[in-house]
């Protein structure tokens, strides 16, 4: 089992064919009852020739993205199947349709086109074209608006909401897990564990009582055996696993159903942007969801799979929260298709205010500057949740994972697995209050899955990403000049991710309080749940083709 991320390192093409194990039956509506011959013409089209000689052109069988999501036979990013459904061609079609609508004065087919750009995409272009992320954002705004796009937004805005919600969800889970006895609280006074404190204020040099055994904080469930933990409830499942990576989600749904309760229910920044654009932006502008066409520009092909999940589809309006995802690579391809090759020669336009992470430069009060949550280039989930939980659960302020302030940051085993532990200040070596991890890439996901399954995970929260090095190295990112080693290139893109971006805590985003108040009716309301949270569904493992040869 694999996903696209693991392939991007070596496979520049990054297009994966449907698996040989694809078992999805292709359904084509049968048009005639009688049997006839099949004819193929010069163009490769198929015709059914009935007995009376009548020729009917046959429909081409297509497999949609959703078919792939429903099947476990294929690897997650079967791009060759998927490009037809979400590509720049689709965006061109919509823009063309808009032109026709305006020319014919038929507003009914006109759709407001919104493009939301990820900060990883900005970093990718900035590194490749030697620009700043701000310049890239302004140039992409210029590019898309020239094409006829109405609004250009930035998913670091919706990521602020995703971070806040993830933090809240974690704290709530932690408290419930403690209440249910799934985990135990560490000693906040730094004294010896409960079992020995019962003996009173014993002296530390009492010979027979030295070195009390460290307590297992995580209760082992189903240790010793490989049986999955029984009846794990999402509301209190520990560790909580980040949900922003669609490759990981898809993999977990297809092969590790028992991991699903552990996954955070907070939607990814892309899908929260989808809620914002289709629901909030739409209502502000008097548009129904289907009157808006929402495109996200992402570092990752698997984001297309995420956008096409049925959870994010409105039956009422027959539209998705994100209609189309195009990758950084595909945007670069669009430049060429528009006859624009030199990005530095692009014009610049101010980004639209609203769902953007741009403010007036506080020092000059004039030009735009980018702002965004601090943290790693995969969205900073670990950093934010650690900072938030340290404060909410233990009253510890000033934790900064990036600067290793108040926490210990350790690379374990390989560069893609990090542990971050929070200890009670002044009590080094004591049982940690919180233990988090970042597990990137397939091999580290395997070990995490194994640990959780056998009840040996010591973690409270894990930021899981399918790609080695995380989103900054996503499968949809621009390819470097072949002379630059991949490792060096990733470092360059990672530096660009922060270049000129002012760090701002999500809770300091002034628009969010207003959104919670006016749009969602408060925190933890049913509407907030509907717009910001989601769920996961295990895909039934289809039995392997019984005809499969036993070689």
């Amino acid at each position, binding site marked *: 089992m694999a996903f696209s991320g693991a392939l991007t390192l070596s496979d520049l093409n990054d297009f994966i064919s449907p698996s040989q194990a694809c078992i999805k039956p292709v359904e084509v509506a049968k048009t005639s009852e009688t049997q006839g011959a099949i004819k193929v013409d010069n163009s490769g089209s198929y015709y059914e020739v009935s007995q009376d000689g009548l020729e009917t052109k046959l429909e081409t069988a297509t497999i949609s993205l959703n078919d792939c999501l429903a099947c476990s036979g294929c690897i997650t990013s079967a791009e060759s199947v998927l490009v037809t459904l979400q590509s720049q061609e689709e965006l061109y079609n919509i823009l063309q349709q808009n032109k026709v609508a305006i020319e014919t004065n038929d507003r009914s087919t006109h759709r407001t086109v919104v493009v939301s750009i990820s900060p990883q995409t900005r970093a990718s272009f900035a590194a490749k074209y030697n620009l700043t992320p701000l310049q890239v954002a302004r140039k992409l705004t210029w590019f898309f608006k020239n094409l006829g796009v109405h609004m250009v937004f930035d998913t670091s805005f919706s990521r602020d909401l995703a971070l806040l919600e993830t933090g809240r969800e974690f704290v709530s889970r932690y408290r419930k897990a403690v209440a249910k006895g799934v985990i135990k609280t560490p000693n906040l006074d730094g004294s010896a564990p409960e079992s020995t404190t019962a003996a009173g204020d014993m002296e530390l040099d009492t010979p027979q009582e030295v070195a009390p055994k460290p307590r297992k904080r995580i209760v082992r469930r189903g240790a010793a055996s490989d049986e999955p933990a029984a009846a794990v409830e999402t509301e209190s499942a520990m560790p909580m696993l980040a949900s922003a990576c669609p490759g990981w989600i898809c993999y977990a749904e297809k092969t590790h159903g028992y991991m699903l309760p552990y996954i955070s229910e907070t939607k990814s920044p892309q899908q929260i942007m989808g809620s914002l654009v289709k629901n909030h932006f739409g209502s502000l502008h008097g548009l129904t969801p289907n009157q808006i066409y929402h495109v996200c520009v992402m570092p990752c092909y698997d984001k297309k799979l995420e956008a096409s999940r049925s959870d994010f589809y409105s039956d009422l309006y027959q539209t998705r929260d994100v209609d189309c995802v195009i990758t950084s690579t595909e945007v670069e391809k669009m430049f060429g298709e528009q006859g624009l090759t030199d990005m530095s020669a692009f014009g610049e336009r101010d980004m639209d205010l609203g769902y953007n992470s741009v403010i007036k430069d506080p020092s000059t009060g004039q030009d735009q500057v980018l702002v965004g949550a601090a943290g790693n280039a995969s969205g900073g989930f670990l950093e934010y949740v650690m900072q938030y939980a340290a404060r909410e659960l233990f009253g510890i302020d000033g934790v900064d994972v990036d600067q290793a302030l108040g926490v210990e940051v350790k690379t374990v085993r390989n560069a893609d697995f990090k542990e971050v532990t929070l200890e009670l200040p002044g009590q080094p070596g004591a049982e940690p209050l919180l233990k988090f991890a970042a597990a990137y890439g397939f091999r580290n996901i395997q070990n995490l899955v194994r640990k959780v399954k056998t009840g040996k995970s010591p973690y409270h929260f894990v930021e899981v990403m399918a790609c080695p090095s995380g989103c900054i190295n996503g499968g949809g990112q621009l390819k470097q000049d072949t002379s630059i080693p991949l490792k060096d290139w990733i470092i360059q893109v990672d530096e660009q991710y922060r270049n000129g971006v002012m760090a701002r805590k999500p809770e300091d985003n002034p628009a969010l309080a207003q959104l919670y108040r006016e749009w969602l009716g408060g925190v933890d309301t049913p509407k907030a749940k509907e717009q910001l949270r989601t769920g996961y569904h295990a895909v039934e493992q289809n039995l392997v083709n019984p005809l499969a040869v036993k*070689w």
Partner: protein
Amino acid sequence: MPRLEQLAVLQGHEDRVWCASWHPTKPILATCSGDKTVRIWQATNASDPTQWQCINVLEGGHKRTIRSVAWSPDGRQLATGSFDATTGIWERDEDESGDYECVATLEGHENETKSIAWSKSGALLATCSRDKSVWIWEVEEDNDFECLSVLQEHTQDVKMVAWHPNEELLASASYDDTIKIWRDDDDDWYCADTLQGHESTVWAIDFDPSGNHLVSASADQTLKIWRRYAPGNATGIMTPRRGEAVWKCVATVKDQHERCIYSVSWSKVHGMIASSGADNIIRLFSVQEVDESAAVEGKLTPEQIKATNEPGVQLQAIKVTEVPSAHGTSDINSVAWYPNEDHADWLASGGDDGSVRIWRVVRD
């Protein structure tokens, strides 16, 4: 000329036998089968190698065929690779029943696990699968395993993995007709070389005692022997990647096997190669350097070597003996030389007839 004499026929498996594996130090053989079991066999009487009994049956660990079985180098554990996509780790309860129990299951392959192999130190375990991937696991305490790498460069079913006899270097053979060599750098494993030359599936591979040669068995009905050329080698073979050796084919054994070759074993003691396959014949070969003066087809002059960057034929595999219909009319899926001096002339084989056979090289 030496010949191969049958010592015993071991009956018990209820389906075809896929793989036979000798214990690293004792005269004990483990075999696995389509009947989803592993059987452990031992000579009844140490002095009489014609009488064997089945001392253990490992059952219930796998839902489908067990395709391969391998002892850990210390002989304490057995690993089993199954078509149910999992790898089992078995340990003998030395204190009480003496039975083997499955102490860990490694999951991760998407479908059929085809082969497993322990590194020389026992610290690493490699597995491969029809899902085209090769996995490397690190053996930890308490029967825990940590996945070190998932290698996905083969484009088809991976049939077999084999570790170098002394180094942490892995070879894998695939339905994509290639063999790949894997090594690790600071952070991850990578493909150090891809050996191309076979015209069909490579079913089996084995290293020679030094680890500087690798023999491969293919559905193209040939065996090939590959030699490692380190940077700065005397032959003048170029090594394009800095510090990285290359492997070059130095011998091809053709017109011997008449059908697919499924198994090959290179004795770590006397250096003889045994091979078997769909033509129901077990063949033994001895390997020697091509004589300087001999006119051998495919031998290249130093100028030609320089021009082609190929060593040409450097070794010759001479057939020592063969046993036709060694398992009757059945395919022979596995041959395995006894691993040390104690009984270096013993060879085990397993076939589609469900039997396991023990052979001995006899020099008349």
